[in-house]
């Protein structure tokens, strides 16, 4: 187990190194001179040279990378070209909203998905099964922005229960969470169904049934408890995708999270902010995936560590 953890940790470090190189290179991959991209083509020679020196762009590429990664390790992801604010501060100011949104969506997605998947498995090949799978397939196929617009139209315009957009506490996160949660529930329902179908076929389930165990205890106590292991992994992996998926939802609902920050930064070509955000989200995604892996291997001792 320790060897496995060390190996996973080492792989994670290499991946992070690769991610940091890619993110660092972003500014150099943009066609044209990065300084001219910032200052515009009518900038004076002096302004160009000053900015080059300020950004360290007159140094060799590897030196620029070392300074980038050195600063990043100290929590300095640079300053926004537009607001001059530190990117880390901007991210930290906005991250709580995205984090809450991801957590609420995950709860909605997990509850709805597990219930739908369990019903589909227990009632396999019935109308309930087909209906649950159809709903989950629609959840996977529907664009997030479309679900969001539909919910706004019904629950903010026609029945003015929720705010149309903007952030004003928990209340304004309900519709966005449902939007993201529905998309997540589709995948979870499909995984729960297939995992539950495997479990239902096991001998111990037949034994419990023969011994006259109550149906609810049989399904939720004996069945679901064992079927949930791979589902929990999926739920964990969805978290990272929810952070990225929040880009669309936050834009539709005008929520000031890191997703909408990314879109604002692209619109203004604010590269330090984009680089900082991409680095931050990838870091969280990698760490969450590692944690899910570790929890999975701890929960299910059948997994072999290769």
């Amino acid at each position, binding site marked *: 187990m320790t060897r496995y953890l060390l190996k996973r940790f080492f792989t994670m470090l290499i*991946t992070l190194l690769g991610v940091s190189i890619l993110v660092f290179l972003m500014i150099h991959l943009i066609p044209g001179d990065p300084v001219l991209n910032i200052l515009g083509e009518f900038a004076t020679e002096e302004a160009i040279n000053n900015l080059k020196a300020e950004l360290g762009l007159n140094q060799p590429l590897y030196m620029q990378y070392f300074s980038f990664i050195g600063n990043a390790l100290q929590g300095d992801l640079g300053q926004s070209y537009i607001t001059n604010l530190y990117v880390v501060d901007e991210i930290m100011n906005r991250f709580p909203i995205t984090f809450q949104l991801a957590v609420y969506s995950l709860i909605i997605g997990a509850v709805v998905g597990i219930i739908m998947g369990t019903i589909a498995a227990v009632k396999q090949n019935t109308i309930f099964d087909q209906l649950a799978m159809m709903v989950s*397939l629609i959840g996977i196929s529907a*664009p997030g922005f479309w679900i969001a617009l539909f919910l*706004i139209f019904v629950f903010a315009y026609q029945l003015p229960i929720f705010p149309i957009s903007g952030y004003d506490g928990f209340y304004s996160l309900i519709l966005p969470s449902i939007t993201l949660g529905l998309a997540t529930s589709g995948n979870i329902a499909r995984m729960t169904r297939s995992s539950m179908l495997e479990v239902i076929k096991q001998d111990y389930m037949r034994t419990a049934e023969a011994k006259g165990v109550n149906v609810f205890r049989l399904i939720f106590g004996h069945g679901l408890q064992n079927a949930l292991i791979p589902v929990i992994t999926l739920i964990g992996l969805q978290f990272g995708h929810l952070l990225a998926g929040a880009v*669309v939802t936050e834009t539709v609902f005008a929520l000031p999270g890191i997703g909408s920050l990314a*879109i604002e930064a692209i619109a203004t070509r604010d*590269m330090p902010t984009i680089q900082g955000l991409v680095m931050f989200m990838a870091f969280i995604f990698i760490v969450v995936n590692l944690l899910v892996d570790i929890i999975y291997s701890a929960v299910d001792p059948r997994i072999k560590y290769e």
Partner: protein
Amino acid sequence: MSQVVTESKTEGLVGNMPEAAKPKSYWSLVWRRLKRNKGAIIGAAILLFFIIASVGAPILSPYPMEEMKMENRFIAPSADHWLGTDEFGRDILSRMMYGGRVSLMMGLVAVSIAGIVGVFLGVISGYYRKLDIYIMQCMDILLAFPSLLLAIAIIAVLGVGLTNAMIAVAISVIPSYVRVVRGTVLSLREKEYIEAVKALGVSDFKIILKHILPNVLSPVIVLSTLQFGTSILAAASLSFLGLGAQPPAPEWGAMAYVGKSFLLNAWWMSLFPGLAIMLVVLGFNMLGDGLRDALDPRLK
């Protein structure tokens, strides 16, 4: 003489067999299984409908795509305008029919680029073990970004626009091809018949072309069908965010984005383009699921 007898015996046997018992080729078995799958047929029918509507747009669309009539602004769905009109009095149905071409093309281009690059890298990675670690490490780095974020980061570099959105989506899809193809090649290269052709001195290029590639076809077909839908969804989301196709281009995501501003007065402007995206993606998912079951019933 004995050869002739054997052949005629075999012919006679097969000839007298009932239709169902005749030996079938792999693909005819797949086709038979696929035909029996209701979901796959419904999915294929949905796709066929949208393909015909998009390809036949110049003939089938009730109005010219760009025809603006200010007196026709914001007309709700009616007998004249089945899906209503937009803020310039343009017919939504006609624009959606042309928009289907853009959306389907976005999916096709993204899947084709990702498929070609992904299959190439996957085969190299699975067949040449020395290169495997490097290719897979690169893929792990790409997989370290949630796919939409990766696409957004690529657009931040390449710039906003339809072509760049397609490239961005394609790059974010490549790792899934590499993984699937590599896995299949890894199991294939251990098979005895591959060992045998290797021992006969057949070149690596020929082995890959004649013995490996035909066997990775099934998983690649399934993956491409599913990724086609996912790519259309991703590309539409990028257009909706203002990063892909730009208005007034009649792309479904961009149309929904414009409709968002008129949601209260003209809900149809974003409802129908979004519905079209959902139905097309649903069609690909249903067909993909059906193909997976038909090509490899063990996975069912």
